[in-house]
């Protein structure tokens, strides 16, 4: 399996899997909170480039991480957001808490996935 988390200085990127439901959310929450506890993180980037399905469990993941990092003055963003995910973020009101980018973000997983760039524009 691909790595889910990447830490660059004080920025942690979460590569959201293909499907983000209750089943997958539990693992991501565990991993992300483990890193947040250990490292000095000020920004969390959720990268949705591979994500085709999400439900309210995904909203819970973002809201929970926002709550944690907000306590230390950090912020949360979402990149490579497709129309579907964007709709869910707006319906739930999470868009007020985070910055959303539909284009290539500040994250970089390397050239391997380079061909996906621009897919959601």
């Amino acid at each position, binding site marked *: 399996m691909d790595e889910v988390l990447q830490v660059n200085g004080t920025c942690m990127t979460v590569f959201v899997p293909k*499907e983000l*439901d*209750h*089943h997958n*959310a*539990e693992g991501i*929450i565990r991993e992300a909170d483990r890193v947040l506890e250990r490292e000095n993180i000020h920004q969390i980037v959720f990268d949705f480039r591979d994500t085709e*399905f*999400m*439900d*309210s*469990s995904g*909203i*819970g*993941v973002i*809201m*929970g991480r926002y709550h944690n990092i907000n306590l230390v003055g950090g912020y949360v963003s979402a990149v490579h957001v497709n129309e*579907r995910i964007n709709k*869910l973020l707006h*319906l*739930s*009101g999470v868009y007020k808490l985070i910055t959303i980018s539909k284009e290539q973000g500040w994250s970089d997983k390397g050239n391997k996935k380079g061909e996906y760039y621009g897919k959601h524009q």
Partner: protein
Amino acid sequence: MIKGIRKGNTMENTNEMTIEFDSRSCNEGFARVAVAAFCTQLNPTLEEVADIKTAVSEAITNSIIHGYENEVKKIRIECKVTEREMHITVIDHGRGIENVEKAMEPLYTTKPELNRSGMGFAFMEAFMDQILVSSELGKGTEVHMKKTIGCIGGIFE
């Protein structure tokens, strides 16, 4: 194809499907894909399929987390298509909901410690045309959802 369905007695033009599975979180993906596959006979748009998948996923997650509180028991999904309507009923025999109205409020959750957003019922309401919840404490919960597929019209003359 679609015109064919319209011919003849409409009462005969229904199709039903039932699945029952263990309330394990790993079955969520399978169950929503099964329902989505069943609804393709109505020739839905990709967005309508995504709507149904999300709504079904919310209902199942509710049953697993709140109904059975992670005990492994059975969840039953009954699907029925009539003409252009998709009916989905998700049934569990868990602890039931004390106050359905309260449970359906957006952002209300009884399990914030589990990173639940409280948006489950709100998403079901947003993505389906109609939702009916009947629940009895200690007996279980039934969530009935309905969605009309292709309501923009013009497909049938």
